[in-house]
């Protein structure tokens, strides 16, 4: 069936079978391969995307459910050539080793910062508890999110 979805600000129409998972639609049809398939059983969070701004696991949603909705994938985080603060944070604090979980981690973190601009370490760990890093690089991931939170807040101060 034909669905129209807005991915990273681009409205697109694709023809999919109802059984197609959202993650496969993103990767195989729209060629947005930054969203990864990890466990494929709703455990690891590697496939996290934002669905109308809310982080969800795209291996546990059908593509047809995205009809009429807005999605953000890791490809949509940077603004032109400018890294999103969360991307800059992961770079600055070395918040990744193999990088497989990183896109999901960054999207879940970006959603956290929208809701809570100044999260404590506990808030961050709690918000990322659906995202698993098999390299166990959690300490630097938490630091990266803290870095991004500080950066975002100082940007806001700079603007006002």
């Amino acid at each position: 069936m034909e669905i129209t979805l807005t991915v990273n600000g681009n409205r697109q129409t694709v023809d999919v079978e109802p059984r197609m998972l959202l993650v496969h639609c993103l990767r195989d049809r729209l060629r947005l391969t930054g969203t990864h398939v990890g466990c494929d059983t709703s455990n690891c969070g590697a496939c996290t995307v934002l669905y109308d701004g809310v982080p969800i696991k795209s291996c546990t949603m059908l593509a047809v459910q995205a009809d009429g909705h807005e999605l953000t994938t890791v490809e949509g985080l940077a603004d032109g050539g400018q890294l999103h603060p969360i991307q800059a944070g992961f770079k600055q604090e070395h918040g990744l080793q193999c990088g497989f979980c990183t896109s999901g981690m960054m999207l879940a973190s970006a959603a956290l910062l929208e809701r809570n601009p100044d999260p404590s370490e506990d808030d961050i760990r709690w918000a990322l508890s659906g995202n698993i890093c098999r390299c166990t690089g959690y300490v630097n991931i938490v630091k990266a999110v803290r870095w991004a939170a500080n950066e975002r807040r100082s940007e806001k101060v700079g603007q006002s």
Partner: protein
Amino acid sequence: MYPPSFDYRAARSLEEVLELLAERGDEAKILAGGQSLIPLIKLRFAAPTLLVDINGVDGLGEIREDDDSLRIGALVRHRDVVDSEMISSRYPAMAAAAPLIADPLIRNRGTLAGSLAHADPAADWASVMLALGAHVHVRSSSGERDISIDDFLQGPFTTSLDPTEVITEVVVPRAPARSGGTYLKLERRVGDFATVVAALHLVLSNGTVGTAGIALTAVGPRSIKAADAEAVLSGSEPTPELLDQAADVASRAAQPSDDVRGTAEYKRNVVRVFVRRGLDRALELARAS
């Protein structure tokens, strides 16, 4: 994993949902949060030929209180419960359970009503709703009815919902003054199935226990209402000795089995400890409310 083929209909009204269910019966499944159903389909444990998506049906996403009930619509997600100030301030057993369900990403999609309909023996909401004395309100094209949670839960992944029926609301008796409750869950890590769960709810009346709700999850083929333990407390003054006795009786209501999460004996002991601790907490909250 690619799910097998099925038809998909994004329903726009409850009437449309009921018509589709009447037509397709047990070939059809309701898709709400999908956080249990989609994995089941991927793993070939379920093979519906039609998914009826209710996410576009208006009026199912509300949490509201009327004169005698708290009413939770079929599309209320775990995250909505976590965020509800009414629930945090007045329904402590629900407030304690909601943040412990799965992980934050799944809580953003999964629904309370869907969790009950899925009837996983380890699912969180069933014991909370048993302890609170809740019921589900269901509709079909030929009528509507209320089913108490105890009658609704039949066994592992089995409920008394007819294939032509859909849950429209979960209805919890309105929290009276002097009531309190809590939820204790043992899990090996975030997102794992529960090892042992106890849900508690107490209502005090002139210094004695008016109503006691004690329910257990993950220690039997379905969530268990520990009625004998509730009877120990009902109408009596909640002395420490009586609470000890209720916890002991509750542990005997559990039907745990040995598995990778622990031995039956260990789980039964955790039930006793959780019920005892939970009663203290419920009592403390009831006295403060």
